[in-house]
């Protein structure tokens, strides 16, 4: 079974981003970029499926700027077999899903794994949209994935606890934080990954229009909280909460 994994290049999770001075976005000058953490989990899950003999080939796809080749190379170093970069900076989720749909039609994977959301736009849409466009069943926010007998059983993290669904293959899984702990790439594997095939494509190759449907008018910093105080004892804390903040009785 072929597994397709979608990955995204985003600002590193440890960077505290700042709004750009012109209020058109956030300032990403000289900011460290990385693979979206949920996508790392998606790659790891695919690699584990391959190690178990369930997956035979892992295709990693990114829709993003030219530099997203770095994230594809990282996935290749982690165990993916080949990559496709569709060059389109700032494509919105529906356009990304349409590009991925075209690739799914060509490649016919048995399973598609995406991260549940990217930590830049926080949209949480691409996986569900791709499932809609391909007619696949979707197991979103997955914390456990078991493939057997032409089906995949997915345990999902939901607001009240956990839910398990069963999907016919081909299906889509989107990863939550506790699905697995991604490994690090070894140096020999990083070297080997440089020789693995990576195709560069354009949205037009798939007939997809990536013009934004939703326009960003402005981006602002959230209202800042005013500085608080330090209290010395628990008594003082409780007194402040009762008499000053009046949030407890």
């Amino acid at each position, binding site marked *: 079974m072929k597994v397709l994994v979608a990955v995204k290049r985003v600002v590193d*999770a440890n960077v505290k981003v700042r*709004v750009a001075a012109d209020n058109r976005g*956030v300032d990403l000058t000289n900011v460290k970029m990385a693979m979206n953490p*949920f996508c790392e989990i998606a790659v790891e899950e695919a690699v584990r499926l391959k190690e178990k003999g369930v997956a035979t080939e892992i295709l990693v796809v990114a829709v993003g700027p030219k530099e997203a080749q770095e994230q594809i190379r990282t996935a290749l170093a982690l165990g993916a077999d080949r990559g496709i970069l569709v060059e389109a900076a700032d494509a919105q989720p*529906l356009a990304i*899903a349409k590009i991925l749909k075209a690739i799914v039609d060509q490649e016919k994977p048995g399973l598609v794994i995406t991260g*549940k959301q990217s930590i*830049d736009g*926080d*949209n*949480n*849409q691409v996986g*569900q*949209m791709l*499932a*809609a*466009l391909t*007619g*696949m069943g*979707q197991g*979103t*926010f997955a914390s456990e994935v078991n493939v057997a007998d032409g089906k995949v059983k997915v345990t999902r*993290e*939901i*607001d*009240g*606890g*956990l*839910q*398990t*669904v*069963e*999907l*016919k293959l081909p299906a889509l899984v989107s990863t939550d*934080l*506790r699905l697995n702990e991604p490994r690090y790439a070894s140096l020999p594997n990083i070297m080997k990954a440089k020789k693995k095939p990576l195709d560069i494509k354009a949205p037009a190759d798939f007939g997809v229009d990536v013009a*934004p*449907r*939703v*326009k*960003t*008018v*402005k*981006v602002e*910093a*959230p209202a800042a*909280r005013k500085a*608080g*105080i*330090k*209290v010395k*004892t*628990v008594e003082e*804390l*409780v007194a*402040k*909460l009762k008499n000053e*903040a009046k*949030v*407890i009785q």
Partner: protein
Amino acid sequence: MSVLVYAEHDNASLKAATLNVVAAAQKIGGEITILVAGSGCGAVAQQAAKVAGVAKVLVADNAAYAHQLAENVSALVAEVGKGYKHILAAATTTGKNFLPRAAALLDVQMISEISGVVNATTFQRPIYAGNAIATVESAQAINVLTVRGTAFDPAAAEGGSAAIENLSTATDAGVSSFVGEEIAKSDRPELTAAKIVISGGRGMQNGDNFSMLYKVADKLGAAVGASRAAVDAGFVPNDMQVGQTGKIVAPELYVAVGISGAIQHLAGMKDSKVIVAINKDEEAPIFQVADYGLVADLFQAVPELEKLV
């Protein structure tokens, strides 16, 4: 102008999150219809009809919708939603699961987790873990939106008398089935609805120590949450996680115990009215957002707190 609101429920009762979505719909303006999709969900429809400001309730009562499977629900919403200018759902794990799928079926670029309505086509939403607020505008024929509950005061649950209409539509996409679920049972209030939330982090050291927080919570009528670190370490289950990718809370009082204050955690609680941080590391970033900070060993401070409240 017409707005379709998707009801969040468990087939027995309407969830409070729906009231926040109705409030967002009221800000958008126009006639509000609530869609209840479920199985044996008649009582939910009755409750939805009483929500203030709602004109109509549509009910799709069918086994295919019993567990809110995204494949089935999204097909229904895309079909029913064609006649509306706006389709709204709560930004819960249910709404986040099916609504992007419905949007794609409608060929609409959805707008996730709005925190403000500027006008009927312009919305605000947090990006980058809430470190920036984007104002976005859409000229699409239909706007499909999830709504961040904490950003909108709930509409009144009583006072309306909407007409209830049954839909005969039933779609079973046939690609997915429900196997089972483990729902946490608790007598404490729901995290996203509680007026007081007490959360523990890695500093709690293990799951048993959370009993200290439960004791304080029970005296205050509070809900108990956790940081990602505490959930990842297996101290407590995932449904307790507060943060960028967990639950978003904005209670009157948020008490962070043994939580350092990673960006991703702050994203889930920094709109709380009053924030208290208890941490032995005075350099912990949580103190930068706390109204009241106590630098102390939580194993002494929390039992003391329990005695004093």
